[in-house]
């Protein structure tokens, strides 16, 4: 048995090649960081569109049906956010599809037959739909009938959900590939499509789609709730925003528990199909019976970089890991990480998973707290709740990103599970200089993009407060000291 090697060891060990005075990264390492970084930014905007779609549709419908000022206000505010997010999603999405060719040509050449179809359907069915009808939604209010206008909102939202579907067909295939056979074409090993249904509806597909869509809805509901709470905090009688807060909380009450229940079952599916990834999620090194760690707290700094049974204070269910993996046998042997030649970076996967699950439970708590306040009809009066929701507004995104890190980093060293290693997918003609240059450009430009998006949100909120006639009250910070129990709580 070989000592387990760390997937990143080689990359990090070689990470610094000194060339003259400039530091260049190895092409493979730079490509992977670049892909991970760019998709992390893209997914923020994609999830914004997916999660905001139901809000936009609802506000548009209510606006048209009731003609009430309240919904018109909410529709126009969130449509502006949607528009900015959509543009950012578009401009960051195109680099994603290009990188399949520029950085991972081995992947596109091997899997082209399997992934090309879904990606082309995504462009033709979803992107065109979304782009065309968003044009109508943003600029056509006066030019089309109410009906066409409402339909445009539905089609735009449907486009966002559909593009999520097709891209996840691709990603799910990479996790649990099937419906193909390996052949040689032009002297290269390539995957040939043999069964489209099997290839599109892989075992992972439905798990991923439900979990991702629901995650986007949760993230955006938290964002909407946070913005609403902030505006209410600044301007207590902003009626429209009471409504927005309530709708977001109601949505959370449904979506947050669903995510945990679904995630639990999803975990068992991962254990069945990708045991190595599951072992990394649980830091299960040695083959044998496995416990299930519900919570884990590092007991020494070492645990952060190298979590294992010894240095964690964990609340664990003894042998439940075995029980779950085998479907009922507490003594079942679960393969540990030391059985594999190459492993994913365990700490990243282990801690990412814990952050996601921990946040998931936090959201359930926030949702139920909000439910209780709605029941007592005090949702918009509780300062403490408003402040908690403001603070929680970015956390959905944190859970969403960490969840993806579990999925993608946990799959390493494979890019197509069991078929193609990431190292083999990377371009052989790519030089360190090129890869480092492009990585640096993407880092700088995308940070600028995210900052610009955040400023835009801030300006929109300020404009909204101006219109509502909120008094600027400089010392009244929502993040001020947490009060004891005050009369309004």
């Amino acid at each position, binding site marked *: 048995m070989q000592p387990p090697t760390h997937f990143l060891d080689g990359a990090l060990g070689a990470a610094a090649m000194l060339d003259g005075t400039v530091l260049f990264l190895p092409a493979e390492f730079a490509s992977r960081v670049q892909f991970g970084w760019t998709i992390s930014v893209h997914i923020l905007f994609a999830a914004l569109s997916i999660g905001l779609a139901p809000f936009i549709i609802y506000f548009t419908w209510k606006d048209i049906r009731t003609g009430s000022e309240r919904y018109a206000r909410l529709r126009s505010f969130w449509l502006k956010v949607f528009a*900015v997010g959509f543009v950012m999603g578009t401009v960051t999405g195109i680099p994603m599809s290009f990188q399949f060719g*520029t950085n991972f040509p081995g992947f*596109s050449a091997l899997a082209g037959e399997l992934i090309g179809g879904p*990606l082309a*359907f995504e462009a033709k069915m979803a992107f065109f739909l979304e782009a065309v009808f968003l044009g*109508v939604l943003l600029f056509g209010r006066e030019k089309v009938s109410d009906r066409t206008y409402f339909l445009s909102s539905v089609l735009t939202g449907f486009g966002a959900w559909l593009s999520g579907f097709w891209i996840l067909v691709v990603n799910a295939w990479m996790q649990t590939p099937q419906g193909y056979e390996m052949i040689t074409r032009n002297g290269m090993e390539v995957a040939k499509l043999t069964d489209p249904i099997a290839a599109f509806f892989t075992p992972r597909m439905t798990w991923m789609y439900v979990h991702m869509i629901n995650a986007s809805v949760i993230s955006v509901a938290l964002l909407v709730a946070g913005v609403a709470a902030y505006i209410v905090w600044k301007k207590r009688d902003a009626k429209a925003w009471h409504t927005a807060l309530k709708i977001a909380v109601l949505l959370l009450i449904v979506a947050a528990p669903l995510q945990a229940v679904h995630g639990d079952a999803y975990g068992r599916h991962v254990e069945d199909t990708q045991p190595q990834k599951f072992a990394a999620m649980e830091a299960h090194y040695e083959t044998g019976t496995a416990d299930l760690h519900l919570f884990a707290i590092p007991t020494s700094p070492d645990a952060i970089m190298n979590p294992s049974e010894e240095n964690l204070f964990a609340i664990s269910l003894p042998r439940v890991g075995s029980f779950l993996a085998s479907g009922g046998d507490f003594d079942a042997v679960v393969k540990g990480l030391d059985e594999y030649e190459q492993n994913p970076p365990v700490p990243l996967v282990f801690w990412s998973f814990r952050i996601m699950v921990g946040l998931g439970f936090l959201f359930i708590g926030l949702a139920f707290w909000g439910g209780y306040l709605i029941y007592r009809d005090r949702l918009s009066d509780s300062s403490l709740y408003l402040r908690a929701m403001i603070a929680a507004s970015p956390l959905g995104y944190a859970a969403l990103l960490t969840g993806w890190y579990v999925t993608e980093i946990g799959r390493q060293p494979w890019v197509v599970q069991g078929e193609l290693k990431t190292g083999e997918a990377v371009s052989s003609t790519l030089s360190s200089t090129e890869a480092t240059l492009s990585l640096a450009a993407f880092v700088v430009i995308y940070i600028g993009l995210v900052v610009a998006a955040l400023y835009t949100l801030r300006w929109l909120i300020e404009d909204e407060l101006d219109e509502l006639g909120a008094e600027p009250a400089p010392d009244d910070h929502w993040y001020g000291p947490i009060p004891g129990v005050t009369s309004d709580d």
Partner: protein
Amino acid sequence: MTNPLLLPVDTYLVDSLPEIWFGVIMFALAMYIVLDGFDFGIGMLYATREDDHDRETLLAAFGPIWDANEVWLIAFGTMLLAAFPDVYSRLLADNYLIALGFVLALLFRGVGPELREQREDESWQRACDWSFVGGSALAPFLFGVLAGSWVFSVGAVSLPAILTGVGLVAVSAVTGAAFLAAKTGPALAGEMRDLGILATVAYLAGVVVLLAVVIVTDAGGTAGTILSIPGIAIVGLSVVAGLGGIVLALRDSYRAWLVSALALPTLLSALVALLLYPAIYPATASGAELTVETAVVSPLALNLTTVLGFPVLVVVLWYFKFLYGVFSGPIEAEGYGA
């Protein structure tokens, strides 16, 4: 093996399906450089406008349509990946910095106008304007270099590739000017006409220089094809469309000018197709020549993409008709008129 659509597994739906797909991909390329071309043109011409009202008018023209136009690029790329995956991966891997530089230019072009309207602050708006103009000029240039490097296989840093880039910039300025002339009021249209004529002359001159260079150096062995009958026909038609466009513009028949202007990028993609075929990727450092026949995916995959993809493509063309119908009126600074 489940095969729900009863598609043939070992034979193409029709024998020439690979060639048909080559044609469809070239059609998507043409749609892209025609439609996003006039968006690029609007962006470049924006630099010539000092007046705020004019600028707003140009942005109003650009706003509702650019994003849908840009999707043709994705359609082109993903269909190339679906039908000829090796070509996709080699085209992009061989031209790494050009390809990524291009998508970053698109990024600046896209976010500039979107962010500009969020803030009434002069230096902010100036920065956004730069992003819009710079991205609009750089994107067609780099895309042209990419196409030149593909067709002439002499690398991106070569005269033929760079001249192709310059050509695409010029032709985008032509279509942008014609589009604006046809859609705005007389004052602006007159200026657009003059700029458009200038750009047409530059484009035709650029084409002449490019062809001279290619024929003399026989870059990528394409000289023979250019001098063949179809090659001469395409070049000849371009000259006719260009000069005809100038005449129409001078007579202020802007709609007719727009039609002739749109013919220019269309002919350019026809030239790309002609120079490539029957190869689809020339021999480069990354491997041997690929032809349509050798690079195409297996029958089942292509049949599936055909059966699921073609009907959708027809629907997409209908959407475009709808979109351009909604925004067909003349443009004013406040948006589209009725």
